[in-house]
């Protein structure tokens, strides 16, 4: 079912729940990985994904059908992830660097972790980035998102996003080469 059809079905009382189930099935994996790249723990990522879909359930009725659904979903998931990270920082009373270190340790604790594999070095390198650069890099590199769409998700100009992505990619390559 196309996104527009799902939104229309959601707005009808008789097909609301079925449309929502289809939407969850279609986007759960993509949104989960988007969240998980920002929040390394599976349990935390699962909580954030739950909250994201609850927001979708509450807001989809008022969603304008001329907007792009997946951009809206990414926007909610991004905001939920950032709120969660902000809460974590406040709760632990740590600064960005300390939280980054804790997240890096969380990556190293993964059952599949292999320090020699480039994919894991890439994960550790992304951890070193500031939140905004991390987001921009993930959306472009892993989710193949166009700058124009990213601009709608992050409320940032295309020029600023391009600059951010370039800085992030260079930093990551540098990190991988040195580790």
């Amino acid at each position: 079912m196309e996104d527009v059809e799902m939104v229309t079905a959601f707005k009808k009382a008789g097909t609301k729940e079925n449309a929502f189930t289809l939407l969850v099935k279609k986007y759960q994996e993509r949104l989960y990985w988007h969240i998980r790249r920002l929040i390394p723990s599976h349990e935390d990522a699962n909580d954030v994904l739950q909250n994201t879909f609850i927001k979708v359930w509450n807001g989809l009725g008022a969603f304008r059908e001329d907007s792009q659904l997946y951009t809206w979903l990414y926007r909610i998931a991004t905001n939920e992830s950032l709120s969660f990270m902000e809460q974590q920082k406040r709760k632990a009373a740590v600064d960005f660097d300390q939280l980054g270190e804790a997240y890096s340790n969380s990556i190293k604790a993964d059952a599949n972790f292999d320090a020699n594999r480039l994919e894991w070095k890439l994960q550790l390198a992304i951890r070193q980035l500031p939140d905004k650069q991390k987001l921009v890099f993930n959306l472009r590199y892993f989710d193949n998102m166009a700058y124009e769409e990213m601009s709608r998700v992050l409320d940032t100009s295309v020029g600023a996003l391009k600059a951010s992505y370039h800085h992030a990619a260079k930093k990551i390559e540098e990190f991988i080469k040195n580790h």
Partner: protein
Amino acid sequence: MNNRKDINEELDAIAPLLKSISRLPVQSVPEGYFEQFSVKIPAESAPVVKMPMVRKWMGYASAALVAGILVTAGFIFTDKNVQPFNYEQYSRIDVPVEMNKLTDDELQNYLVTATVLSGAGHTSSSVSEEINETITAETASLNQVSDEELEQFLNENAGNTDLK
């Protein structure tokens, strides 16, 4: 979504190493997580039903009535107008003078009442009678002692001050 080819060309220019890395997720996820995933939508809160105006005022009236009963009952059962004990007033009383003012009947009444309240089985007159009986019995037993025995007893206890 953007074309993967465009993104790779972009990476060629800025960070070619990244182009060769797999984009597939490497982190572990519990088995069957995506198949079993479901969203727990919280139950919608119950709608608030507005109370009709008459029922609302009836409610207020009932609450006021109950509050009135409780306050009145509180006054009835707790407000006994008890005067505090005035120790200063009683310390100024001259007890012997006041006692002399009492008649015999008043004293007799007091003794009877005090005995009943204390729960004792004796009045002061019965106590006096008991003492007299004891003295009489002891005097009778002393009459049976001879003068020689008394003399000897006094000589033996000459140093005992209790007998002086």
